[in-house]
């Protein structure tokens, strides 16, 4: 007794019948020509490549690039008070802060304490900007520099002096609304 498929049968809708013969050949030829026209259109459209090391796409003002530490402009004192909140906020644990007391002879920051060591390991940093958000004194901000590749991993650990220094202006900034 043959097997009764019953309700197992699924009705399959086939695609359009394959065009063979002369009609299919004609259609395939036409479609090939259409494709050639499309690619030729791209040829006439020109090049959209940005020649990177020579040309740079300007970054937006809120672009999160390499960190910068700041000083007060009037007094020249560092804004960082060594509270380590940035290190606590950092998800990739790349900031190391060792705080020290300010003394009347050696006054570095505006607060009671200052950061004796402030290091950011940029090979670990994910540029999330949480340190900037966590900082109560706006001492650390994200800059615009993104060209930080180096030959050596240890060269990617940025010290306080490097972060305080004015970064070389190698990244064009995009104007608001541009």
């Amino acid at each position, binding site marked *: 007794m043959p097997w009764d498929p019953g309700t197992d049968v699924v009705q399959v809708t086939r695609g359009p019948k394959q065009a063979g013969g002369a009609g299919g050949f004609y259609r395939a030829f036409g479609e090939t020509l259409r494709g*050639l026209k499309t*690619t*030729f259109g*791209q040829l006439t*459209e020109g*090049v959209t490549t940005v*020649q990177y090391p020579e040309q740079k796409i300007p970054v937006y003002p809120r672009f999160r690039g390499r960190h910068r530490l700041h000083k007060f402009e009037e007094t020249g004192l560092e804004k960082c008070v060594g509270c380590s909140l940035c290190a606590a906020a950092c998800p990739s644990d790349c900031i190391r802060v060792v705080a020290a007391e300010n003394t009347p002879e050696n006054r570095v920051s505006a607060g009671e304490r200052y950061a004796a060591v402030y290091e950011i390991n940029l090979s670990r940093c994910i540029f999330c900007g949480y340190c900037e958000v966590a900082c109560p004194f706006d001492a650390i901000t994200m800059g615009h520099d993104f060209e930080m590749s180096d030959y050596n991993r240890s060269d990617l650990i940025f010290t306080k002096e490097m972060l305080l220094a004015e970064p070389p202006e190698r990244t064009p900034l995009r104007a608001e609304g541009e």
Partner: protein
Amino acid sequence: MTRTLAEVGFSEEWWIQILKALFFALVGLQLVPLVLLTERKVLGRFQNRYGPNRVGPFGALTPVADIIKLLSKEQFRPRTSVGWLFVIAPILSITAAFGALALIPYGDIVDIGGYPVGLYGIDVSIGPLYVFAFGAIAFYGLMLGGWSSGSKYSFLGSMRAAAQLISYEVAQGMALVGVVITAQTMSLTGIVHAQEGMWYIVPQIVGFLIFMVASFAETNRPPFDLVEADAELVGGYNTEFGGGKFALYYFAEYMNVIVISGLATTMFLGGWLLPFGITAPGWVGFFVVIAKMMIFVILFIWIRATLPRLRYDQLMAFGWKVLLPLATLNVLVTAIVVVATD
């Protein structure tokens, strides 16, 4: 009594022949980097980018850099490979490609310094057969290379190469039969002379289209590059080859493109003849042929930028069910027309 397989037309001293052979081999060697660079630059433009532009002015030295890089690499072969076959296979490929190049005529017999010199490597009475013979030897380069690598992917690639090249060679040969019937000669210079009234691309347009499609398959160019389909086969028959051996395969592949372009130029585009019956001194023909070849090379690149790779069964079905019957029909119609109008 000596039997000749083919008649070879000579009009030069023996030392001119040697110089001539060297010259045309060198021309071929110079054309390969040119085609390589053209491909990468033009393909880039098709994809809205510049292509290589760092080495030399406008990237003109990129092929040189490529070749230096490949030649300075370590000579490596897998433990499972078959020693001398693995070495000889790429050499076979490039030799066959150069052998076929000798046939492309760049001009008629011209007078250079009082000596009559034919602007071709060799002019034989069996022109297209000679090219196909060398094409068949080139298959051995591919197949032996893939098989002697001792790698499954290489083997798959070479099996595909065997099936694909043999299938499409039939259609390619049949497409040229129409031209041979019309020209009533198999000498390539004779075929060019026969096109003085009208280039064969007009009366043999069907043959031309079949020949071009089959040639794409013969030279393993997209959309028929199943032999080296990198998404499926890693790299095809040349997977295990590196350094100088890979450079030879690479050279042979582009040399084949040049040979096929030259053959199409000779067979269908009137070789060294200028359009509209313009006559020019003999040496102009050389540049005319190169220019016409470059048109075909650009066409190869254009198609590569446009069409996706075929499925394997589609490839076989297309070769045997469409191209071969069409080519046969073309031969029949051409023969009937030639006999009827004779």
